[in-house]
């Protein structure tokens, strides 16, 4: 837990959105990100407003009406931003051009922190006018 993954970089603000499911991902993500102890040392923090976020963290599945709401909410994230979808029950990508998924029911805390950083790197790579990341790309 005490790894030095993001030292010296800007803080990654994570905005968590809970979909439909068993809430295992939400509990796991909150457990690892909501404390100021573990994630703060790696410059990853949960934020309370989408406008303050750099990464949208989706947990569970999002049926059509809910997906539309999340897509509307995502407009409040200032560019550039990334999206990480947790869980085995994710289904189709809500944001195919920038979404990274992490399977697991629920994924482990180390995996979540690694995936946040991996999604963040994807966002950085996707910023120049190059090829977009593959839809629903999975983090190993």
């Amino acid at each position: 837990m005490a790894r030095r993954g993001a030292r010296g970089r800007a803080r990654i603000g994570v905005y968590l959105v809970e979909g439909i499911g068993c809430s295992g991902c939400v509990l796991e993500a909150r457990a690892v990100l909501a404390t100021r102890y573990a994630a703060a040392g790696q410059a990853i923090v949960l934020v309370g407003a989408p406008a303050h976020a750099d990464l949208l963290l989706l947990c569970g599945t999002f049926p059509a009406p809910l997906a539309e709401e999340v897509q509307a909410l995502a407009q409040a994230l200032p560019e550039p931003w990334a999206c990480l979808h947790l869980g085995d029950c994710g289904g189709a990508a809500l944001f195919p051009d920038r979404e990274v998924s992490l399977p697991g029911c629920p994924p482990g805390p180390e995996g979540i922190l690694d995936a946040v950083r991996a999604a963040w790197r994807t966002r950085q790579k996707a910023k120049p006018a190059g090829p977009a990341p593959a839809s629903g790309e999975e983090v190993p």
Partner: protein
Amino acid sequence: MTLWGGLIRTLLCPGFLSALLVGLLCRGLTAWLGAKLGRRPASPAWQPFADLFYLARKDPWDGAGLAAARAGWPALLAVVALALATGRLPWPEKWPPVPAELPGDLLLYLLLLAAPALARLAAAGLSTSPMVALGARRQAPIEIARLLPLFLAAAALPLASRQLGMVQEAAPTPLRALAAMLAAGVFLSTLPWPLWDRDEYGSMLAGLGGRPLALFRMVEALELSAQMGLVAVALQASSLLPAGREGWAPAVALIGTIVVLTVLEQRGQRLPMAAAVRRYTRWLLPIALAISVLGWLAGR
């Protein structure tokens, strides 16, 4: 000197730049120290610099249309107000261009210290979001409650020395030294950082992202430095520093600020809203009133 010339000179003056650097470093150092003392993984001390530069590069949130752009203006005005305030500090010594002292510097400084709170409330008022309105409604009492003991304790300095300048040159007496030291204690007790750690504060700025938010982060750093400057002014007025070493006052104020904020950071306790307001109004306000009375007695 023209108005624009004066503004540019103030913004480029070492007082402003050093206030920004010291404010950001103080936040980073405090978070690092608090984490280390609590045996937690720590962000590096330069984390606030990285955050600020990154936020400044981000686009503003365009979902709010004009409201987001307008909300940047109060922050910009607060930056200018705090630049003017920190430009009046008599430190760093012998480093031109230190502005010449004016007779009413201390009053001007105190008035400008209120600018950040007003800017935050004004920015929230420009937003149409109900979340922001709720945050502002809950945050406003604590912002105002913090300023009341601060201003009242600051009144002790001119009352004791019969001077309104930033450098209080009256002959030291024990009563005057005591009033100034106690005022410095109140200034340290009303440091603004604990307010920024509250959910209500985040909610009040929820409509801002990217560059407007970076401006508010800059305001926070400057506000912290400006209050540190006030602590240094009180320390200098107390005449307790060794003769010829009055220039140590800002360094002592910086250390005091880091110690106070590290303790708060390590405790990591957020008081409920009513308790936080009560802390200012029920405890610090009477103490500040007593200090100003003490200052008045010392100046008689």
